[in-house]
């Protein structure tokens, strides 16, 4: 679906047509990997803020509307529908969102300024690190000179070695080696829960 058509659809859904608000589900699969498959071309002014994107921390939740204050102090209202894909360490549901969570959101900006979200990632971080120490269920990481505590979450944390398929075995991780960590930040701490750790196996 082209961008304009998608925007019109979401507008009609969000602005209260009698039909159920189905959001992005009507546009196809909502698996994160496939929720972005619409044919589209985008070019903005080099330093323009993407109007269909938001970053910040949740300052309030009213029903399915997230009130978010951007790190640049921009205020966003982000509407989640039954079709919004939500990630918080793993694919999850809207009720996992909490005041204080950081987020990135991608969707379509409505005429009233609301961002109708296709996808929301709560507390997600992508850290380029070095492994300082490995303890039981914890990786101690150096991230540009800052210490990060990475928690291994049983049943969720996976490792990808040299681009091979993800596995739960973390035994090939080595102290002193670099590692990229996709995880969920624990707000206002230096701790993250690890979703995926990318490493080069020895």
């Amino acid at each position, binding site marked *: 679906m082209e961008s304009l058509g998608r925007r019109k659809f979401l507008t009609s859904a969000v602005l209260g047509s009698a039909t159920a608000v189905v959001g992005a589900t009507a546009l196809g699969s909502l698996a*994160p*990997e496939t*929720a*972005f*498959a*619409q*044919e*589209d*071309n*985008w*070019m*903005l002014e*080099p*330093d*323009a*803020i*993407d109007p269909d*994107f*938001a*970053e*910040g*921390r949740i300052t309030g939740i009213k029903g399915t509307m997230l009130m978010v204050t*951007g*790190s*640049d102090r921009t205020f966003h209202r982000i509407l989640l529908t039954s079709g919004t*894909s939500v*990630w918080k360490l793993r*694919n999850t549901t809207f009720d996992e969102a909490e005041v204080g969570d*950081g987020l*990135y959101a*991608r969707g379509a900006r409505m005429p009233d300024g609301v961002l109708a979200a296709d*996808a929301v*990632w709560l*507390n*997600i*971080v*992508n*850290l*380029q690190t070095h492994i300082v120490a490995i303890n039981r269920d914890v990786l101690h990481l150096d*991230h*540009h000179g*800052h210490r*990060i505590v990475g928690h291994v979450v049983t049943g969720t944390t996976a490792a990808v070695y*040299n*681009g091979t398929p993800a596995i739960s075995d973390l035994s090939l991780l080595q102290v002193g080696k*670099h590692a*990229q960590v*996709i995880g969920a*930040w624990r*707000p206002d701490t*230096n701790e*993250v829960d690890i*979703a*995926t750790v*990318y490493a*080069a196996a020895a």
Partner: protein
Amino acid sequence: MASPPAEVMAPATSEASWFCCGPAFGPCSSAGGGACGTCKSASLHCAWPNTSDACYDITRPDKCGDDLLRRTCGHQFFVKHLCGTTEIAVTVRDCGPQTDLWCGEKRCCSGKCATNRLIDFTPAAFTRLGSLSAGIIPVTIRS
């Protein structure tokens, strides 16, 4: 100091990850504006491994066998997911990724693959192509 090649074509495919810059929450809050000073997570920006001699000395794509053009702050690339149809324009606003740490790494989709990390995107740019939770995606790049 490594000497980047003078004039060779940029590769057609690459792995790509994402990075935060400018105002940001959590561990990203100290990221700053990147090598160009004006990088923002909410803009369609990218990092390129050969923005300057100093940048190239860190990223060293040549160690992975990739000869990359010098592309400085403000250059625009057109990129899309290797298995996608959405093409976006991204502007170079930082130095990166550190290609030599990941030589030979490969990411595939639908039987097509891209090798080595030659470009990174801001969250705004990355989410126009794929999901942040994927971490790494294969892309095509053209100038």
